[in-house]
């Protein structure tokens, strides 16, 4: 039986792991071997995480029935308001 394993890769120490791709393999040992070959043999990875696909809980539905865009920060310019606030407080920075 062949299983799918998701592989996450850390490029440099301290960096977050990012999804690199997946490998199919019958068990964890083969998955490790194939992940090493595909994502590690050119010294391109500091470390790998190998996770059975069943271990990944996918979430992809984010309903927005009431148009919640007012909760987003984009489109809202803070620059002018910040300037006004600073002037009121007498802490405006000289530019």
């Amino acid at each position, binding site marked *: 039986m062949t299983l799918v394993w998701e592989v996450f890769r850390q490029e440099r120490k301290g960096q977050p792991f990012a999804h690199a791709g997946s490998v199919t393999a*019958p068990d964890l040992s083969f998955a490790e071997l194939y992940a090493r*070959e595909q994502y590690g043999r050119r010294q391109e990875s500091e470390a790998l995480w190998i996770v059975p696909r069943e271990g990944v809980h996918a979430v992809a539905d984010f309903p927005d029935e009431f148009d919640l865009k007012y909760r987003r920060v984009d489109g809202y310019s803070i620059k002018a308001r910040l300037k006004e606030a600073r002037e009121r407080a007498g802490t405006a920075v000289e530019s």
Partner: protein
Amino acid sequence: MNEQAPRSRAELLLELADDDLILGWRNSEWTGIAPFLEEDVAFSSIAQNEIGHARALYELAARDLGTDADALAFDRRPEEYRTAPLVELRRLEWARTIARHFLYETADAIRIDALKSSDDPEVAGLAAKIDREEAYHRMHAELWVGRLLGSEDGRKRLHEAVEELWPYALGVLDDELRPELRRRVEAALGWTLPEAEPVPRGHHEAELAELWEEMTSVRRSAPAGARW
């Protein structure tokens, strides 16, 4: 059979280099047609590693012989190669490929181990370097052997393949290292191997000439002194 005759450092290095080059070439015949994609990538990578080891060994031998690695790899006649017949065989069938891979890696580990304690620091150093990469080849071979042993059909196929290749596997090593090969292979497989007359170095399988034609065709097509 004079395979036990004392040989120079260059002759010894050529045995290892030729084995690695020809096996690397044979294993690369699976590129594009291995049983599945991940295995294709892995087995091709192993094949490339073997050829990389061959290059390092040829470079060291070339210094002793006053030539270069390319000349040693490609400019000799097929009958001048010092390969063990095991690596020359063309067996494009997966169980045989895995059996040969496993037998070769096991034999290679034994001779590399012996070379790691060589008095010659260059040989010992190169052997240690090769061994670090070979660890992954052995892991690959052992995983596959375990997989094949896990099913009745796989076990049967592996058994047939090992029986066929066993005399060839013995031929990879010098006399004194053969009992260790038997011990390791029997321990891994869990059955007793037959008594067999080793197929030694010094004669070549017909398939080698065929492989040589293809392997050297590009180099032979170019005028001498061509630069790549």
